[in-house]
């Protein structure tokens, strides 16, 4: 333990309204902490910059899963264990449930929250590719009210996002219209548990008579933040998954990917594996036509 516990203030106002009031009084001064699976790691290593922290753990207004006719709304304080345990969510949003099962271990999933994963904004975030290809929407809240942005517009750079200093992430809205889409998610990492992704690819696509009529592709660790792969999508849209189109889509992905070398992998490995994952998904579009 290289951090110093008394160097940081932590308070737990206990309700959403009380937290929002606190943030409104001094925007940017307080750092929200939910399950602590990111910030407590920084704390232990002496890297936690935030002096004043406000606890979101145990606030019921942030921990819910609500099933509406057109969407599933997930409170930002919902843990990955909650996500895995929710039957409708696990059945309909398989990619998100799958991503939740990859996060850390049982002990991490019981504390780590979906909102925390997104606000932390790691380029390798496990839940992000799934939420991007499901066209999720992010709802933020402050004493000024609520507002929403498409999740694809939420991250603006490495670990930065569109939230203001007085805002909290409130909920993630995931549309239920993807049930008939082909769905794909694969993470490549050192081991199945605990390891952070070297690269991950998520995809949803609608195929009509062999032609791709809708497609969403998103990657982790191919850019400074989790992002859609719009050029690779464009290469497939309105076409069938022929070897030639797949090769064009591969090249588009290689052109738009901006991976880095780091402790977990190299940019070149990420680029090539990312393209291979894309090819694996696109080839699968030719398997059967039942959907």
């Amino acid at each position, binding site marked *: *333990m290289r951090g110093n*516990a*008394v*160097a*940081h*203030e*932590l*308070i*737990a106002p206990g309700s959403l309204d009380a937290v929002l009031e606190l943030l409104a009084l001094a925007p940017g001064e307080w750092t929200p*902490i939910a*399950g*602590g*699976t990111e910030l*407590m*790691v920084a*704390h*232990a*290593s002496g890297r936690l910059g935030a002096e004043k*922290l406000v*606890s979101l*753990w*145990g606030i019921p207004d942030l921990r819910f899963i609500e099933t509406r006719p057109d969407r599933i709304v997930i409170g930002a304080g919902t843990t990955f*264990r909650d996500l895995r345990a929710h039957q409708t969510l696990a059945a309909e949003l398989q990619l998100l449930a799958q991503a939740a099962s990859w996060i*850390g*271990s*049982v*002990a*991490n999933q*019981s*504390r780590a929250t979906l909102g925390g994963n997104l606000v932390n904004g790691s380029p390798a975030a496990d839940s992000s590719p799934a939420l991007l290809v499901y066209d999720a929407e992010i709802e933020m809240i402050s004493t000024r009210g609520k507002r929403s942005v498409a999740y694809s517009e939420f991250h603006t750079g490495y670990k930065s996002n569109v939230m203001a200093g007085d805002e909290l992430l409130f909920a993630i809205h995931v549309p239920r219209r993807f049930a008939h889409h082909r769905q794909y998610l694969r993470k490549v990492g050192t081991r*199945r*548990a*605990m390891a952070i992704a070297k690269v991950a690819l998520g995809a949803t696509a609608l195929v009509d008579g062999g032609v791709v009529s809708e497609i969403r592709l998103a990657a982790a660790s191919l850019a400074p933040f989790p992002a859609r792969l719009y050029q690779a999508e464009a290469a497939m849209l309105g076409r069938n998954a022929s070897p030639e189109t797949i090769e064009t889509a591969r090249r588009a992905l290689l052109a738009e990917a901006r991976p880095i070398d780091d402790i977990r992998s190299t940019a070149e490995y990420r680029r090539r594996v990312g393209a291979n994952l894309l090819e694996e998904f696109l080839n699968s579009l030719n398997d059967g036509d039942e959907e």
Partner: protein
Amino acid sequence: MSACVNIRFNVNGESRAIDAPPMKRLLDVLREDLRLIGTKEGCGEGECGSCSVRMNGELVNSCLVPALQADGATIETVEGLARNGELHPLQRAFLACGGAQCGICTPGMLMAAAHLLKHNPHPGMAEIREGLAGNLCRCTGFIRIFESVVAAAASEQAADAR
């Protein structure tokens, strides 16, 4: 700088109250304030599971829990597994099967395994591997640990494991 706050919780069935900085780790509160040194620190960053305890019925890494977030919680540590001088079936199985060598990972392994058996009294090998995936052991190569969990689950006592 942060003043100490009063934190009350239930640890292994006993009500306890301590004064601690709110960002003190639950791990340090258990070991230093309550002298419950069964819970070990391995990596200190949520990777190795040595500090696993149960908090409100969920398995957590106590190195990643700020003390303030444990206020009002029910905490179970490895010291609470044995009852009335009787080892928990898992503890007996770890002894019988060679599931412990140096012992540093053992309290965390026991707590993760106890958590698993609570939810799934007869887990398959894949479920045992997933349940213990967050707990690292540098000695046993894991096989004897997995066998210990299988043995505990098979033992009669595990049927009504706490």
